[in-house]
């Protein structure tokens, strides 16, 4: 008898251990890549936080920037939007995977995307499949050239925003909001941002008037100047009303890029009152910052150079990134 009791107990133990093993196994699969179980993990992850919104109950068919007819699932649960994480986070959507390169992620979002696994920037197909997305959003047409679109579309419906929309984060946010049935959130986020910007503008004008400022990015011993309408440029010049300096306004229209190369020689003529320096060269690497010419630039002479970490938000666009950029500006210029 005794033995049968122990048998029972040990039997139960075994079941328990088996359950534990199953759970471990399943949870491993949820975050991992075993083909047959990855799609079953969908329910466990990402119940979107703002379920209150009017989510459309029907799948809808839309046309993306490249002319593809895309059927957006009724209520996408596992969204993949590589390099669109700012927008997704703003809408309260946690993507199934986040953009990465071998030596980094978008650091300024690391708090928001803490538990989100990474996916290589070039979207290897099997890696995409392993996350079992039910909806994929791609920012730029050029990242899905040469048939990659068709391949991605086999994994899940894929929508290409296109450069036209993608380079303006408001448009991007609105579009993604519509796609995911979160238009209200998108609108609200833009409203919040504009309010924040207006307040900041008020404080800033009080502190420094409409002085001019330049954003310089130093990478591999080359300087780049931000365009007026891009990333931190749009924040400074459009949203916060600072004046773009001579070198920014002098860029010929047909040569404009988001970040424009500028030689140190040209930089010697920069008249900006303030310089925000995003330094990717770090450490003693920045010999260039010790040169007499750099030190002779009026803003540098006056001590109005603010060095920003290259892991910050200044190189990015989006409600989130721009909001953080505004915080930085206020911290640095409004005492």
């Amino acid at each position, binding site marked *: 008898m005794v033995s049968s009791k122990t048998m029972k107990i040990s039997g139960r133990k075994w079941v328990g251990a088996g359950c534990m093993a199953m759970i471990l196994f399943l949870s491993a699969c949820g975050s991992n890549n075993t083909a047959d179980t990855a799609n079953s993990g969908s329910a466990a992850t990402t119940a979107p936080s703002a379920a209150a919104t009017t989510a459309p109950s029907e799948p809808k068919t839309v046309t993306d920037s490249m002319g593809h007819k895309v059927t957006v699932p009724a209520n996408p649960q596992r969204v993949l939007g590589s390099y669109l994480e700012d927008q997704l986070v703003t809408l309260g959507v946690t993507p199934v995977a986040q953009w990465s*390169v071998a*030596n980094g992620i978008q650091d300024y979002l690391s708090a928001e995307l803490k538990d989100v696994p990474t996916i290589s920037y070039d979207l290897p197909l099997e890696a995409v499949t392993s996350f079992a997305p039910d909806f994929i959003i791609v920012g730029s047409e050029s990242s899905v050239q040469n048939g990659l679109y068709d391949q991605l579309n086999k994994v899940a419906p894929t929508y290409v925003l296109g450069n036209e929309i993608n380079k303006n984060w408001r448009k991007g946010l609105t579009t993604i909001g519509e796609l995911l049935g979160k238009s209200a959130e998108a609108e609200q986020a833009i409203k919040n941002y504009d309010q924040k910007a207006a307040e900041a503008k008020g404080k800033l004008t009080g502190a420094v008037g409409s002085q001019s400022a330049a954003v310089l990015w130093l990478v*591999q011993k080359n300087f780049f100047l931000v365009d007026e309408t891009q990333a931190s440029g749009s924040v400074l010049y459009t949203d916060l009303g600072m004046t773009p300096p001579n070198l920014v306004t002098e860029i010929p229209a047909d040569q404009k890029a988001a970040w424009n190369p500028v030689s*140190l020689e040209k930089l*010697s*003529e920069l008249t900006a009152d303030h310089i925000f320096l995003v330094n990717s060269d770090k450490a003693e*690497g920045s010999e*260039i910052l010790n040169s007499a010419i750099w030190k*002779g630039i009026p803003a540098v002479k006056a001590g109005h150079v603010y060095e920003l970490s290259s892991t910050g938000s200044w190189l990015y666009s989006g409600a989130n990134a721009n909001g953080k950029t505004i915080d930085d500006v206020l911290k640095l210029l409004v005492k």
Partner: protein
Amino acid sequence: MTASKDHHPGSTTALPAQPVRSHPAAAVLIMIFGLAAIIFGLALSVSVGAADIKLATVWEAVFHFNPELQQHQVIWELRFPRSLASVLVGACFAVAGAMMQGMTRNPLADSGLLGLNAGATTALALAFAFAPSLSYTYIMLYCFIGAGVAALIVFGIGSLSRKGLTPIRLTLAGAAVSALLLAISQGVAIFFHLSQDLAFWLAGGVAGTSWGQLQYMAPLILAGLVAAIMMARSITLLSLGTEVAAGLGQKTRLVQTGGMLVVVVLAGTAVSAVGPIGFVGLIVPHVTRYLVGIDYRWIIPCSAVLGSLLLVFADIAARMLNAPYETPIGALISMIGVPFFIYLASRRKGAIS
């Protein structure tokens, strides 16, 4: 590159064994006028650039330097070093090319054949990927090491045979090592998302050369040039064929090894400072040989002068073509170089192969 036009030791297709033709008068003229032109080029080079500085200010900066004035600083800290760098680097590539052509007896050889460019590029890609906070001076050093290691492998494998370093083996080894290293740098660049940074560096040219860098480059380059001129006689003998040279009592292996070392120092320094600038090492020795004959005692110094001249003016053009942006100087020289090269190649008789 072109194995079919190497001359096998002892083959009769080599240069005819007549007394060495040379035109010392032409060489002396080149040296005098070339040096004068270089000085003029230097003057022009410090006078033009992205920043709008009046000529009077330029002269004032040169003779009455006032560190408080930004424009004076531009002249001293930017334009002077870059102009001097273009002079030095031009001489390097041209002399290295001349020595390669003489030693391998391949009229289309240049220092790229030794895998120097690929070695420097790979070292750069690795440095960008794994040690992004290195100072520029260290990056230069790594590139130099990369170039040297690549050349060592190529030279080592090329000279493993009993007959010594044959041009064909050198070419094969150089091509294979270059392909390997370029693949590695491509792989690293793609994996770490660095391709465009790398391209910017490769296209960088002499812009951004600092006095600090010159301070390291100049002694090496000057030593290399002096060594090259001292070896000129041996190179001339070698250019008649290893067997001829050996027959005249030359220790060919020693000369080859020494010559390669000089090439590595010259071209390696140049590549690590300004990136691979093709065609200088190819074209300049050709033009020089056409003008001064086949004696390397004249070819080497004249190549140095003409190479400097070419680079000084190419650098001026690179600044002015699309100001205030820089046009990649390598691309610029290729655009002159390619038609010239095609002209050279099509002059060759098909039968030579």
